[in-house]
């Protein structure tokens, strides 16, 4: 067996936004060496595109790029998520394993299959492999708890930056604070240091000079990978922030972990309730986050958002189904929705044009409505 031939297990995993921080935390605390892939760059994309089937969606390609770059750096064990339902993602781990083996890499791949508590199966696996350090259940729980708390901080960090970026006076200030805090969260070793970090985040952001400019609120929904990975969505959150838009996502890292990696009994209960909002447009699970996308558009509309942007990778089946329902959702709930399809070719200018046009439209409509309101009162 592979593991018998290697002395040290060097773990890697695909990138998806900031998820590398909690993942790294777990494995490092279990005494394993972690080699996260270098951040996604054009090279990652080029490697991925070169070795992936043409008609697979962008996440598979970027994953392949990530894996190759991590294996080059010396990683020998890949942790990958599996999946269920009509979305092809469930099969990506298997396909990727074959592609990488064909390329001649020597490695082991562990695929985490949702939904039923396979997380513990993984930990058992890891425990068996890493017999150099015998982790007790207590150790494992501690590692997970630390990672979980980091994930919560990361989500808080994102949310704070969404609020500040559109109204910062000096452009780039939010990004600076964000990156500084991100590094610190990454470096935290002990749980004791985490609890007061929340206030630290709030304080750091409150030091950014802001204007009292009016902002518009736009929600981002869609396929999870394109929503969470800034390299793939061309930094949509940052771009919108610079256009004066306060963004919000339908999904954060912690949500994804809750829904995909945790055992069923730990899953959030409001999730099912939220999904019901997709009725009568999409009444059942259609794979991926298709049903969620529709439900969240309704949710954003109810929360008083001014618009929603729907993201999907080219050829994403569940989101294509959602897309066809969106015009009716948009009409019934009176909320403008723009769908953006992302692929390796996404030209940045065209993307920017659409974002600008969308925000222009919302701002203008708001002005007209406010104007009408003032006049009808008189």
């Amino acid at each position: 067996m592979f593991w018998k031939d290697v002395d040290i297990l060097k773990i890697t995993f695909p990138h998806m936004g900031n998820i590398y921080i909690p993942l790294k935390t777990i494995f490092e605390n279990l005494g394993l060496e972690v080699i996260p892939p270098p951040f996604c760059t054009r090279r990652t994309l080029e490697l991925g595109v070169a070795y992936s089937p043409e008609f697979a969606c962008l996440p598979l390609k970027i994953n392949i790029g990530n894996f190759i770059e991590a294996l080059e750096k010396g990683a020998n064990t890949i942790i990958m998520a599996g999946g269920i339902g009509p979305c092809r993602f469930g099969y990506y781990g298997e396909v990727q394993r074959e592609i990488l083996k064909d390329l001649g890499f020597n490695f082991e791949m562990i695929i985490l299959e949702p939904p039923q508590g396979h997380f513990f199966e993984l930990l058992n696996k890891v425990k068996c492999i890493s017999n150099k350090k015998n982790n007790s259940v207590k150790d494992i729980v501690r590692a997970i708890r630390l990672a979980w708390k980091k994930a919560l901080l990361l989500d808080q960090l994102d949310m704070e930056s969404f609020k500040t970026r559109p109204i910062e006076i000096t452009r780039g200030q939010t990004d600076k604070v964000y990156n500084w805090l991100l590094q610190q969260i990454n470096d935290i070793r002990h749980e004791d240091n985490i609890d007061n970090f929340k206030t630290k985040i709030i304080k750091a952001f409150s030091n950014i000079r802001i204007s009292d400019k009016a902002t518009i609120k736009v929600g981002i929904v869609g396929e999870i990978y394109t929503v969470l990975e800034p390299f793939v969505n061309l930094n949509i959150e940052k771009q919108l922030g610079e256009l004066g838009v306060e963004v919000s996502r339908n999904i954060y890292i912690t949500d994804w972990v809750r829904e995909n990696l945790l055992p069923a009994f730990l899953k959030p209960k409001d999730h099912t309730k939220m999904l019901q909002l997709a009725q009568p447009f999409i009444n059942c699970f259609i794979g991926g986050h298709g049903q969620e996308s529709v439900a969240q558009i309704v949710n954003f509309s109810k929360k008083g958002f001014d618009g929603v942007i729907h993201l999907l990778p080219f050829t994403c089946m569940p989101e294509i189904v959602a897309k066809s329902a969106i015009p009716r959702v948009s009409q019934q709930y009176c909320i403008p929705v723009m769908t953006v399809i992302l692929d390796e070719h996404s030209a940045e200018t065209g993307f920017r044009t659409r974002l600008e046009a969308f925000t222009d439209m919302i701002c203008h409509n708001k002005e007209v409505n406010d104007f009408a309101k003032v006049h009808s009162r008189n």
Partner: protein
Amino acid sequence: MQKYTLGIDVGSVSTNLVLLDEKKHLIKKLYLKTAGNPIETIKKGLGILHEELGDVDIFAVGTTGSGRQLASILVGADIVKNEITTHAAAALSYYPNTQTILEIGGQDSKIIVIRNKTVVDFAMNTVCAAGTGSFLDRQAQRLGIPINKFGEIALKSHNPTRIAGRCAVFAESDMIHKQQMGHSIEDILKGLCEALVRNYFSNVAKGKEIRPLILFQGGVAANTGIKKAFEEQLEQSVTIPENYDVMGAIGAAILAFNHIVSRQKATRFLGMDIAAQNYKVKSFECKGCPNNCEIIQLFSDNKLKARWGDRCGKWSSTIAV
């Protein structure tokens, strides 16, 4: 002295310049081929305006189109606006009752839905450029037909063939197949018009409610065959504004005019003589990270004016634009 507002639309295929007077009436329009060199084309356009009108007082400047940032740096624009907003602004100034705009340009096609004089929805082609100007250009070229005769010839057809419009590659091979089967050119061209319009409705305009008044703008509106196909499939009449080919530039000018009036600011226009200046673009590949971004630097008379193209902001932030 008469004051003019300048509007510049730098598109993939054409670069359009317009001058409006104080009543926002069109005084002069230029439709130039971008020919892969927007800087030279803008300079040429300004040179022509300068030559024909002499020293004019420019009150405001607006730029739009995919090259709007570049144009803005070059001429010193007061506003830089996306094509959707400018096309809608221009359409509403000529036809206040417009409810739908069909716009097909060189590289993209869009639909803009307007209600009560405001844009309420829009869509642009996402992953496919079939049916846009460049594709029609290419097909006309392949068949040896001047592009301005395309529509005229298509209208002669009584029995259009069916061509797959899903994808530019399929459409082309389908056309070749039909041509080898012996179908007449008229029937093939008409079939192509129908296919492209079908593609537009199932792709760009999908799920949008199309209500009159319907305007058809952009360079492709010159093609009467496409107009006819739109009318047949919509079962409604489609209006082509007089200046259909420069609506983006007109919109940019109108928005710039309004901007300057409402802010009571002076224009940032750098003057007509920029046409005489020597502009150079140099690019290099940044080796700071594996992104290998191509950094583009704009020099005016050997002085660095602007830099862009980097993902991280390392270069673009070092110089004020």
